[in-house]
Every structure is written in C-alpha cells, then in structure tokens.
C-alpha cells in the first residue's frame, strides 16, 4: 500500500525465557540495515517494558496540537481511570525534527463500560477506532498492556535514540526502518502499527488489500490508514484474539499453501487446509510481504506464500532473532547457534515461556 511501499527493514528479537533486556539491541540492529530505509520513518515495539503498570492499557498517543490533546484526554477520562499520564521521554539532541506531542497514559476501563476481559478489549478497540477516526490531529500509536510502540519520522536508529530505548527493558522487541517511495513522512504512519498488544512491522505491498479490507469490514474493523500493516494487525486481532487460532493456523490462512501442496497433505490436514481456504480465502494476504508481529505472548515472523520479501531467523540459547538481513542479527549476536531462512508462508514463532498462544 501507498504508505508502506518500498524496501524497508525489519528486526525482531526476544528472549523466550522472559528475561528482559534493553532496547539498545533492536536500535543497533535496525541501524545496521540503514541502507534499506530512507529516513522517512522508523519505529519499535517493546514488550514487558511497563511492569509497574502491567495491568493497565498503555496508550501511546501523538498529537498535532494541544486541542487534539484536550479532546482526546476528555474522551479517555470519560471511559477510563487514568492511572498515570505523562509525556513520553525523548532525547532532545538528535537529528529528529519537528516531533509531535507525545504522551502516554496508563488506563483501566471503567467498570460501567465493560467488565469482562474480552469486553474490555473490544471496548479499547472501539476507543482506538474512535480517536483515530474522529479526533483530528490525535493518533493512538499503541494501546496494549505492558508494551509500547515508539515511532516517528527519521532513520530508525535515530528514532531509537530519540525515544531513549536503551533505558527500557523488555523481553521482546521489534523494529522497523521505512523506505516509503512517494509520501511525506507522517509519524502515525510509521511502523510498528499497533492495536491492543498487537504490533506489526511489515515490509511489503499486499495486492489483496482491497479483498482483505472488505473482509475485515464485515467484522467492524475500519481501515482508516489504507496501510498493509493496519490490515495485518486487524487480521491477527481477528484470527488470533477473536477466533483463537494458533499461529500455525494463522500462517495457513494468511499465507495459504497452494492447492497442489494441499492435495499432497495427509487427509486430516488436507481437510483443515481446504476448509481454511474456503472460509478465510478473503484473509489470504497476497503479494510480497515479510512481517513480524509482536504480542504479549511473543513474536511471530511470517512471509508471503512465495517469499517475495526477505526474512532470516536465528537462535542463540533462549534468544530468537528475525531480521530482513542477516547483518542485523550478526550486529547483536555474533555467533548464533542456528541461522535459517524460513520457508514461504512458514511462520517463525517465538513464545514467551508460560504464555498462551
């Protein structure tokens, strides 16, 4: 899609044991692949970074002006108890220019609004849809628990420094360096894209966008940004959170095996794959892409069904790495135990020990 066009670099790292480490790794790995970006956008998602507020929805917001800030805060106050509100700390001395107002809020849903967990999540989603869709100049960057997205216009490495990521500790990080070809950079349009604890960094241009978008519309998702990342995020939200599919199944939906591959499968698997294509054909993501999806339970990397975009993975002990280029991994892990190129459509799944999904 327009906003995502181009090369782009992706990086993801996690410690499956749950040990937390600083955002510096992700910053230097993505900076290593600077060739793949053009300075019009970079960003990070960190998981496990707000242990003090781990039961709160952490909203990262960007405002174009104070009026937007006021309207948004009014909206939040109406619906949530705000445990804490503060500007997101940034470093002043960087190359980053004209940052918008950046705030974060730690929120709990007022009981009058929703009391069950799924209900709360749906409520949060509707809040995000509302702010992003209706409040001019305000944009929710992330809205999950114990996680946050940091992104903006600039080279990814500089964005990492700007947001002082080395000062955060998380068990999983994803990073993105953008190379949009024909749009002016906009902070909200940078990656990762997030909804609840989902975050998506994406390299590609999906040709099934129209189909995916209209499919998602059936379920109330409004694709306001016209971006692939948005669509992929919602697809994950629908398939994983709402339908409860595991990532292997999601892989077989988003990057469905070809019919002749399906025909070669044993019968029970064949039936499943066929049923998935029948039911979720409109969720098939077509065209070139490599995507790393982060969520509370870990990170997942996936490629399109004919692998038109690069993705390489590596392991070292409990550490799992994914990157557009091996150089990104070598930058932070000189001698991995194993380095491999995932097959087209084969998800690489990093699971937080003890987590579900």
């Amino acid at each position, binding site marked *: *899609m*327009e906003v995502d*066009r*181009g090369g782009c670099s992706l990086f993801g790292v996690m410690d499956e044991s749950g040990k937390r480490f600083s955002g510096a790794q992700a910053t230097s790995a993505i900076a290593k692949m600077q060739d793949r970006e053009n300075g019009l956008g970079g960003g990070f998602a960190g998981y496990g970074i707000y242990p003090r507020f781990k039961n709160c929805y952490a909203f990262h917001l960007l405002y174009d002006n104070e009026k937007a800030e006021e309207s948004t805060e009014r909206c939040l106050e109406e619906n949530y108890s705000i445990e804490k509100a503060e500007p997101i700390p940034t470093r002043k001395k960087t190359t980053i220019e004209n940052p918008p107002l950046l705030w974060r809020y730690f929120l709990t849903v007022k009981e009058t609004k929703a009391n069950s967990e799924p209900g709360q999540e749906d409520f949060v989603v509707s809040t995000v849809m509302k702010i992003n869709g209706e409040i001019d100049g305000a944009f929710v960057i992330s809205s999950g628990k114990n996680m946050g997205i940091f992104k903006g216009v600039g080279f990814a490495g500089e964005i990492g420094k700007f947001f002082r990521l080395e000062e955060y500790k998380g068990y999983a990080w994803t990073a993105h360096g953008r190379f949009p*070809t024909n749009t002016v950079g906009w902070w909200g349009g940078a990656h990762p894209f997030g909804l609840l604890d989902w975050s998506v960094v994406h390299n*590609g*241009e*999906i*040709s*099934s*966008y*129209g*189909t995916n*978008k*209209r*499919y998602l*519309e*059936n379920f109330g998702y409004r694709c306001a940004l*016209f971006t692939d990342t948005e669509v992929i995020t919602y697809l994950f939200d629908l398939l994983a959170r709402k*339908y409860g*599919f595991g990532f292997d*199944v999601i892989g077989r939906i988003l990057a*469905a095996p*070809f*019919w*002749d591959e399906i025909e070669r499968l044993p019968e*029970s*698997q064949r*039936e*499943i794959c*066929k*049923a*998935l*294509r*029948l*039911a*979720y*054909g*409109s969720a*098939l*993501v*077509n*065209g*070139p892409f490599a995507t790393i999806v982060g969520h509370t339970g870990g990170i997942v990397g996936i490629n399109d*069904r*004919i692998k*038109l975009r690069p993705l390489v993975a590596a392991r070292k002990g409990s550490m799992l790495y994914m990157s557009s280029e091996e150089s990104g991994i070598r930058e932070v892990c000189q001698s991995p135990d194993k380095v491999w190129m995932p097959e087209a459509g084969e998800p690489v799944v990093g699971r937080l020990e003890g987590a579900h999904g």
Partner: protein
Amino acid sequence: MVKSTPPFGFTIDRDDEKCIRCQACVRMCSNDVHAYDAEKDVIVSDSTKCVGCHFCEAICPTSSLTVERTQSQYRENFNWTAEVINDIKSQAGSGGVILTGMGCDKPYTNYWDRIVLNASQVTNPSIDPLREPMELRTFIGRKPDRVEIDSSGEPKLATEISPQLELETPIMFSAMSYGSISYNASLALARAASDFGTFWNTGEGGLHKDFYKYGPRTIVQVASGRFGVTREYLNTGAAIEIKVGQGAKPGIGGHLPGEKVTESISETRMIPIGTDALSPAPHHDIYSIEDLRQLIYALKEATRYKKPVGVKIAAVHNVAPISSGIVRAGADFIVIDGVRGGTGAAPKVIRDNVGIPIEIAAAVVDSRLREEGIRNQASLIVAGGFRRSSDVVKAIALGADAVYIATSALVAMGCTICQKCYTGKCNWGIATQDPYLTKRLNPEIATRRLKNLLRAWSLEIKEMMGGMGINAIESLRGNREQLRGVGLSEVELEMLGIKHVGEAW
C-alpha cells in the same frame, strides 16, 4: 396499398471471378439464399432471405463471398430509426410480438468497458504465471462462518463444510436447454466442462440420458416448467439451480415450439412429441420468498443435503434486497443474470428494455450481502454478456465468485450472433434440431474449441492477476481496489464501489 414489408439487411457480394460454382453455399444455406442457375452457369443469391449468419462465407473454398450489411436508407431521424420503422412495418404485417434471439443489443453503457485494471510497478513485483503457480480454483457453495479445529490429539476439522462445487477456473457454462440448442452443442458443453474441471448447466430442458455420465460436472436446473425434473435428475447433477428469471427476458416464461420437440427432446423433457413446451412466467409454487425457501429445502431434502442448491434471477431494480432474501431463504449460491444475457427466443421488446446491467447488479449484490454479514453464506455467480477474460476479472474484483458464459461459448462453437435462434434454422448447427443442420456441429471440434476458450481466458486471467501481484483468485475476489472507473459519474462509481482513474488507494 403497396405491400409495406421491411427491407432486408444483408447483401451477398459474390466475386464471380473467384466463384468456381462448387455450390457449397447452395447446399449449405438453410435459408435457401443461394441457387445455381444451370442455364447460365452462375450462382445467384437472394439477399432478402439472408439472416447474416456468415455460414456460406465460412464454407466458400475460394472466399468469393462476403456478407455485407446493407440497410436501405430512410431519411435520418434520431428517433425514427430504420430499426424502429422496420419493426413497426413488420408488426403491422404480422400483428404479433417481435421475436428475437441472443441478448440485448442496445447500447446501454457497458461498464466493463469503462473499468480498468491495476498492475504492479516497482514497489511490488508482478508475478509471471508461466513461472509461478497461479491459482484460479474456485468453490461454489455456502462457506462456513468459522472453522473449528479439534486439537485434542491429531488436529481434525470439526466444522462440517457444506457441499461445494470445485472449479478449476471461475468460469462456467450458463444454462442452455437441450431443445434450444442441439444435442451436439449440449454434448460439447458437457464434455468441455468435464475435461476442464468446470460446470455446464442443463437449462430448463432436462438432462438427456446420454449426458448422465457428465452428471458430476452438471448443474441441473429446475425451472417453472419442471421439464425433465425427477429425483434421478436432481441426484445426477452436481448442483441444482432454481431458475426464477433470465436476463434476456425477466418476468417472461419460455416457449419451445412443438416442431422442435423431437423424439429425443420429448423424452428428455418428459412431454409428448410435437407439443409446445411452455414454461410459465412464474413458478406457480413460488409466489413469495417463503415459497422459495420451501422449494430450496424440498430440493435439498430430495438430494439429502449433498448438493448445493442455488437460485437464478434476472438482474432487476431490486436485485440487491432480493438476493439478500434468497440467501436468507437458504440458497447456497445465487446467480444474477444481467440485461445482456442471451436467450433462444424472447420478445424483442422485453429483451431490450427489461433488466439492469450485470456490472452494477454484481456490485450492489456483493455489497449488500457483505453489509448484512451474509456474503459467506452463498456464492455469487454472475452472468449476462461476458465477452472476454477481462470482463471476468472485473466481475470477480467487484465481488463475484464465478461467472457464467453462454453467448461466448456459442460464438466459440461458430455462432455469429445473427439473433435468429428462434427460427430453428441455425446454419451452424447450434440452435436447431434439424438433423441436416445439427450434424454440422462436430462435438469433438466444439469441445476442443470450448476448452481452448476456457484455457485462453484462464491464461489471460492469470496474466492479469500476475500483473496485479496476485496468485490466488481469492485475493482478487471483491478486491475493488484493483478497479478504477473511466469517465463514470459519481453515482455510477458509488454503485460499483470503485474509485475513478487517477485516484490512488
């Protein structure tokens, strides 16, 4: 008064230098246009009898014949065109309804010609269909709302999947009854569909016993006349289509004249030889949507829920809500036949004035079903004047699951759309039961040509999909972002749900 008959429309131009008097034209023309004058050793042609089917042109070994359109000229008049004047003269003579064949030929906007497709450039790669797999496989039938997988132990599918038709290309042959077309034409459709992995449709004339072996690739129709409908017939087909309406003649029944009811047709239709086969305008057991639901379920019961049951309607003003009703009545697929859909015989006034174009109908039905969250409950098949593979691609991008072609299939078999199907004198051996004419259609050749057409269109569809960077037809389906309108008004764009050319995503 002087007999005022409409002037004829064609002239036969014979290059006498090239004519070798072989008399192939004389022997072949079912309209007796050509005659050999032995005394003068020349062949003379009576243009007044010519219907413009071009068979003689095709058969002439020296290409000495050209069938040319000539119209005796009246004074120019935007309103009182030659067609209008001739129709009036003809009716003043006959006192009857003007019959015609094939689909509406009036110049209503053809939106396919006003829609262009997208292609990948630079930022994402187009896919070469000759090197990479490119999937056109299409399933017709109700899709599950959700797939459940039983993961206790070896993962197993826990959702029951409704019966589906599996197509290797999203193109099927639309309903043409044995009776309206010849045995050989039917046979060719059946064989081509079977060989290619798609489906053909019996139309309302029943299924000849010889064709039962093609049952697994046959959609059997249940129309208002109920011709040839038996339990065996229903169970032989792969799917059942309740025909409510037809694009060429919405709201009108069918009429196969007794002369065409030969022994074999009478057997297939289960009516006496030589009697007119009349299909009533409505189904007399369907006066409401509840009645339709009963019929759908009666047919499902009769086939033990093993076959998809669909409903075909003509595209009319209310097509979207009607479609929604049909889906809610339990149809597994819905067929919309647009105004350009063909027929063997229809009153000209109906053919040319009733119904709406399929492009708009396809778009509004797809949107409506999505809005109501029931799009997955039935497949959407669209029909009515699909002329080329790009029309198919555009229809699928608008939201159709598959298209039906019929006129194109007939053209592949030789038809030149002379619109005289109703006369039963089709020189190409298609729309006739005259054994002297039907043998002209060698079903082997016709099968080959139909398969070639399917193959060619499928290849082109793959090329277009590849150009868009799409390698599975699912990702084209409903992908209106790949479409742009050219020179269409706001309201047309809105109906079609597409943007205008020049607009990016």
